């Protein structure tokens, strides 16, 4: 491990933490344009975070220490995940510490702490949100794992950098199994990040909300951390998508200044396109009823399983 690897690693994490709010801002801008509205500023998420960090925090009387620890744990896991996902280079020091299964485990840990914190105060909304979040989670998590397994069957490893290396070199055409898992992945991404057909990030209607219901009792810095973690999660998911399906531009091998010079603009362009694409999907679809969500995610799960089957079958 040379110094430049470590520098890239730190750079990758810092860039993810810094750029995550901007990505959400960009997504919201695209959505507003598509819907013929005047777009909010790209910097609005940053201003929101700053505002929240300057407020006085109020904690409910019945809250236990778990409630106060959870935002830090959730934020911390998301930052760590940003370090594990090879979004700029594949030879980074941290990526060996966890493979894709551990990454999914990390997301699961964040979800678990978030739902437990939501149940901690004991409000009707909190428990409702926790239950719905787990309902989304228990289908989305296996679907994500199956998506990753298709890629790892192709590259015979569950380590993300190896997968990215393998997919970036050689095969141009999308392999048949991956076509299925790409569809499944987009569905999972929408569900996991509380985007439109599953959850509406813009409302506080009890009939629809999932993520918002869980963080209702948080305020000020705790809320800021939760929101920032959610933005990071979206960013991380998009980066996983790049690593699995669009690995071009990521520096394979030992990264040098030249590699970075390619990787960073490539990442920026991919993010811009992905943001616009997500905005398009959200604009075209309508919010589902809550009981339709399992059907939606079940479809994603089955697509992922099918991807694996097709891969096994066409491979023989």
């Amino acid at each position, binding site marked *: 491990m040379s110094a430049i690897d470590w520098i890239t690693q730190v750079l990758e994490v810092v860039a993810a933490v810094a750029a995550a709010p901007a990505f959400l801002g960009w997504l919201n801008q695209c959505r507003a344009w598509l819907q013929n509205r005047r777009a909010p500023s790209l910097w609005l998420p940053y201003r929101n975070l700053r505002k929240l*960090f*300057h*407020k*006085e*925090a*109020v*904690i*409910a*009387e*019945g809250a236990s220490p*778990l409630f106060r620890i959870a935002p*830090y744990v959730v934020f911390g896991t998301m930052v*760590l995940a940003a370090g594990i996902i090879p979004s700029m280079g594949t030879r980074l020091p941290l990526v*060996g*510490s*966890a493979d894709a*299964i*551990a990454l999914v*485990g990390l997301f*699961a*840990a964040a*979800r*678990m702490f978030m*739902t*437990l914190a939501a*149940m*901690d105060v*004991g*409000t*009707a*909304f909190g*428990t*409702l949100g*926790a*239950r*719905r979040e*787990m*309902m989304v*989670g*228990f*289908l989305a*998590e*296996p679907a994500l*794992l199956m998506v990753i397994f298709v890629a*790892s069957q192709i590259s*015979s*490893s*569950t380590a993300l950098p*190896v997968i990215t290396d393998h997919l970036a070199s050689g095969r141009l055409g999308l392999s048949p199994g991956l076509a299925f898992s790409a569809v499944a992945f987009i569905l999972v991404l929408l569900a996991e990040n509380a985007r439109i057909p599953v959850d509406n990030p813009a409302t506080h209607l*009890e009939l629809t909300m999932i993520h918002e219901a869980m963080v*209702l*009792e948080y*305020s*000020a810095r705790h809320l800021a*951390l939760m929101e920032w973690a959610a933005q990071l999660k979206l960013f991380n998911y998009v980066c996983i998508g790049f690593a699995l399906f669009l690995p071009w531009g990521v520096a394979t091998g030992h990264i040098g200044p030249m590699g970075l010079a390619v990787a960073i603009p490539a990442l920026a362009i991919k993010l811009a396109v992905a943001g616009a694409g997500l905005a398009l999907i959200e604009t075209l679809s309508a919010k589902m009823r809550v009981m339709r969500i399992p059907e939606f995610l079940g479809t994603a*799960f089955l697509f992922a*399983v099918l991807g*694996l089957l097709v891969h*096994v079958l066409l491979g*023989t």
Partner: protein
Amino acid sequence: MHRSVHPVVSQFPMLLVGCVALLLGWTVIGLAGLVRPRSVLLTGRLLFPLGALLGLALAVLAGASLLGGGVERLVLPVGLPNLPMHLRLDPLSSIFLVLLGASSFGISLFAGGYFRVGEGTAPGLLCLQYHLFLAAMGLVLIADDAYSFLVAWEVMALSSYFLVTTQHRIPEIRRAGFIYLLMAHVGAICLLLCFGVLQGGSWLFTFHAMRAAHLSLGWATAAFGLALVGFGAKAGLVPLHVWLPEAHPAAPSPVSALMSGVMLKTAVYGMLRVGLDLLGRPVWWWGLAPLILGLLTIVYGVLFAAVQTDMKRLLAYSSVENIGIVFTGIGLTIVFAGSGLHVLAALALLATLYHCLNHAFMKSLLFLGTGSVLHATGERNLGRLGGLIHRMPWVAWLTLIGVLAIAGLPPLNGFVSEWLLLQSFLFTGHLPHAFVNLLIPMGMALVVLGAALAGYVMVKFYGVIFLGQPREASLARAHDCGWLERIGLTWLALGCVALGLFPLQVIRALGAVTHQLIGAVVPQASSHWWLLAPVPGRPVSYEPLVFLTATLAVVLMTVFAVRLTYRQRVRRGPAWDCGAGGLTARMQDTAEGFGQPIRHLFQPFFEIERELPEPTDRAPRYRIAVRERIWRLVYEPIVGAVEGLANTAARLQRGRISVYLLYSFVTLLVLLAVALLK
């Protein structure tokens, strides 16, 4: 193949003699309880902790034997006239003895603080049953002939039956005990027949003779099938799991912990002993039965766990799920071993054994946690608990570790075994059987679905018991557990953490077992002691320590960054709740509510009986009962058939002496005729 590997037989079986002495020690402790059966001080403060220490010593001895990798034999001059008691300590027994000793250390300490007067059976008698149970489990693990194995197996079943029915004055508990005893004996009959087949006509019942016997394929398959049913009934494999959700809630919590954490594992031990050791090289398609049944058990167990409203019943179904994972691992091991893929078989076996160890610690911890809650509140019903994290911080935080571990979250232990199992699924590559190749992705999907649902179940379990507002006023009087209980819980929690953080050391120790059963060890690709990279030639790794350090570092850095920049104070206020106001504990989600999505989604699995209130009801009541369809579909027809048969047989009973004499006379004539024809 691996028969040719001759393990070193040491001169004097020192470790084995030590183990036998410890098992005898447990028996003596148990008998000592009868000296003053009503004294809580004697049993609780002296005998149980002493038993715990013996457990620790047993774990140390067995651990030494495991690391040495040798085999020790001993013949004791007791037992049948021409079948003295054969004992043997090899790596497979050692690893399960470690499991027994290490987890019983925590459980016994906890039990010392737990049992009190007024629990039905007197403490002294309980002490006897408890320690006999421990000693019998130990004997099962070191028995080397069918006779002592079955005797130990029966003592284990009977002592645990008496422990389950500690509160024998309650009819439901007697019923639960009956179901348990019945299933235990159905299993025992299958095992008896299994050993009968295994001796292969030599009429020698030592395991050594069984290994040497040559069975035809048909008989070997029959033996394997009988073992699967016999051990499956003990382990709780669907559809033979029905006793688990009845017996676990009925038993006192330390007993539930012991039964779920350790006794189920003796069945796993038996399955491995018969399937991979006594039967020699397995046929690959034998593995399909445990594989498919295991996958079915995973999904079935976890779905039923998600809809339970009794906390111990929920944990019982979760045990069913975990046994499913273990049997899936056994199935994979056999499929691989039979197909000649030895390294993969070793990997799958590793995952199986690792999960057994993990489950012993995690599930014991959770059962003991529910025990403390039960003692503090007198409630098992999730609908009447809540908010206990404020009243019982020790129990709550230690249980949290168990909850996170069993949900399979890194860097705790549950994740390691699931990771290993998934790796062995993933690297199946191409088996020589096309159909199985198709089955593998489906199996993988079910395993990950089960793991994710386990997370759901655990959030429900923890959130409803320990978080939120107390649902009953009486919960305000709940108190934290005593110091013995705290030590017991801490020991088990530490076990969960250690098994999660140092997987490599554990795997190295398990190498002796895979070498014994498969003839291969999982080689380590790297020389770093913190890097878990089990498949050679495949760049896969997981570093739990680095993982933990990185997580902690990032979290602490966040805390410091926020502390440095944040100037405002933190204020306590009433819960906001969208500004609605008037928040009461009744507005929280109940256990039924939390299970609703699962009930809705997987409706065909459940038999649901629902009572909905009318709009005009003055005092609306909502009641829902979820039953297993399996009772109606499988067990009730069997019960009906048995009753029918019994009624037919009852016609023989006429009550007149001359009819009975006629029966005897006819029997005698028939027998004489048979003798004549011969």
